[in-house]
């Protein structure tokens, strides 16, 4: 409320100041040029390069949509696209569910809750590379996971988790989740704090059960946080690279390949820069819907 009034006053104040001093324009233009130089100009080049065949040495050769046609018959691309969708669903879905669960569990201020929150949040500050190495140690045949399994009499489940084509992708998702859940939890904790407690009081007076309160108060009240979390997660999922690269390089036999890792190895290891650019455009198109909705929401926010 206070913010709202400040805004309307600010707007009136601005309208009076009509002339914008040149130095103020420079304040905007310098950062804009920096971003234009390192982001917008390269992005335009990226779209153009996706229509070329290029080895990085001789000049790029325009080939139209040939790169995109090639994708239709590229089985590695199919695997990578499927894994990316699976990654979105599993990594995204589980981090929302578990992050919200952790937030609900730890929302009350009570003794010890600060410690539990910090424990869940700590991995968020690790780099994905360090996270990957931590979990690589856990996954070793003589590591803690297999040791614990055999200690529990489940030795037959012990497994070369990262080396098996059937488990590699899931074994990479676990560390990514371990690092993401604390982040999602923090966003939901802020959202839960913003719900008016009078709503729960009223529901209790009406005899609502805990589930009904969750279903009809918590969930609808969290809708704006949900929108944020969803966009953050989709953008993060499509960017996911480090943890896969550090753990499996997309292998074995492309079984944990994501579009992002396939793009990187195509471009910088196979030096097929045109095809790599086309793969990057596909990633962009997948992210586009989310980016657009995020921007529309931001547009409404920016008065």
């Amino acid at each position: 409320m206070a913010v709202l009034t400040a805004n309307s006053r600010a707007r009136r104040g601005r309208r009076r100041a009509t002339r914008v001093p040149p130095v103020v324009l420079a304040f905007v233009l310098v950062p804009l040029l920096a971003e234009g130089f390192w982001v917008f100009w390269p992005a335009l080049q990226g779209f153009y390069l996706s229509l070329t065949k290029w080895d990085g040495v001789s000049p790029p050769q325009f080939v139209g949509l040939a790169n995109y046609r090639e994708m239709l018959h590229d089985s590695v691309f199919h695997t990578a696209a499927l894994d990316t969708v699976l990654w979105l669903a599993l990594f995204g879905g589980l981090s929302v569910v578990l992050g919200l669960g952790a937030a609900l569990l730890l929302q009350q201020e009570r003794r010890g809750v600060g410690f539990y929150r910090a424990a869940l949040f700590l991995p968020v500050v690790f780099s994905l590379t360090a996270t990957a190495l931590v979990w690589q140690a856990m996954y070793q045949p003589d590591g803690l996971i297999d040791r614990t399994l055999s200690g529990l009499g489940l030795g037959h489940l012990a497994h070369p988790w990262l080396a098996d084509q059937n488990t590699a992708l899931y074994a990479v998702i676990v560390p990514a989740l371990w690092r993401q859940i604390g982040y999602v939890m923090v966003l939901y904790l802020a959202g839960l704090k913003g719900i008016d407690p009078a709503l729960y009081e009223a529901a209790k007076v009406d005899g609502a059960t805990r589930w009904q309160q969750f279903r009809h108060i918590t969930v609808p009240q969290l809708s704006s946080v949900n929108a944020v979390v969803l966009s953050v997660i989709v953008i993060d999922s499509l960017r996911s690279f480090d943890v896969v690269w550090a753990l499996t390089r997309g292998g074995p036999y492309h079984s944990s390949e994501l579009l992002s890792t396939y793009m990187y190895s195509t471009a910088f290891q196979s030096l097929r820069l045109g095809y790599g650019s086309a793969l990057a455009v596909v990633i962009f198109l997948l992210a586009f819907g989310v980016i657009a909705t995020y921007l529309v929401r931001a547009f409404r926010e920016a008065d």
Partner: protein
Amino acid sequence: MTATEHRAPAAPSRAAQAPAAARRAPRVTHRMWGTAAFHTSAGLLSLVWLVPIAVVLVTACRSFDDIAANGLGTLPHSFTLGGFRQAWVDGGQQQALINSLVVTIPAVLLSLLLASMAAFALSRYDVPFRRALLLLMLSGNLLPPQILLIPVSKLSEQLGLYDSLYALIGVQIGFGVGFYVFVLHGFMRAIPPEIQQAAVIDGAGPWQIYSRIILPLAKPALAALTSLSFTWIFNDLLWAITVLRSDSRMPITASLLGLQGQYVSQWNVIAAGSVIAAAPTVIVFLRFQRHFVAGLNLGAVK
């Protein structure tokens, strides 16, 4: 906070209807069970989260012979800091950490300087196309970096900056600045205009208003963004391996991958390297915990 405090005053009014003593006993046991259940579940959850960290800390302090003889997933039979020495000196982590800081500190300071200037102009003046400019800048940060990797690596080659830390600083600033502008804009526009008007009457120019008034008032948002961007830039791997080639110039994340290849199955060295790589951001987090969490929530568009 909210739930407990607001539930408490409701309790006596309901209890007053029935004989108080008869009701109190079951409620107390009920609450005890609730507390026990809470600490059990939250404790187990935290344990699952902390075990991998504990394993790495323990492994980093073991000797190679101990790990080779007893396996990774056992209690330690040795204590040595040799793994840290190997990672730090022979594994090149010392140079890598210096590289990381040489990139991260200027990149954080410059991007926040540029972003605060743009946010100041866009939030306090009627710059033409303000809203469009703001969203254009934000949209650059939302792009998947993959679309930029090839052109950025070629661009830095053309500039003669390939394999230099300047290229990495440049791209970190260019890619991050849009987001910081957006967040700071949201913060600065809530500052009441009267403060600025008073300064204008006293004859202050835009630069003075920016540096003497708005910037100090935006300190909470700047603190939050500083801790956040420090972590992001310090933890980056993708941009580093895109614009750098020499091992001697790689930041700590990329050097950790080098360590992984160089010391295959010497888990004490790899674990020690991971601890070194994670330490700076953990320190920033523990020191600026409140700013850090505030930063994450600032970034969330409501």
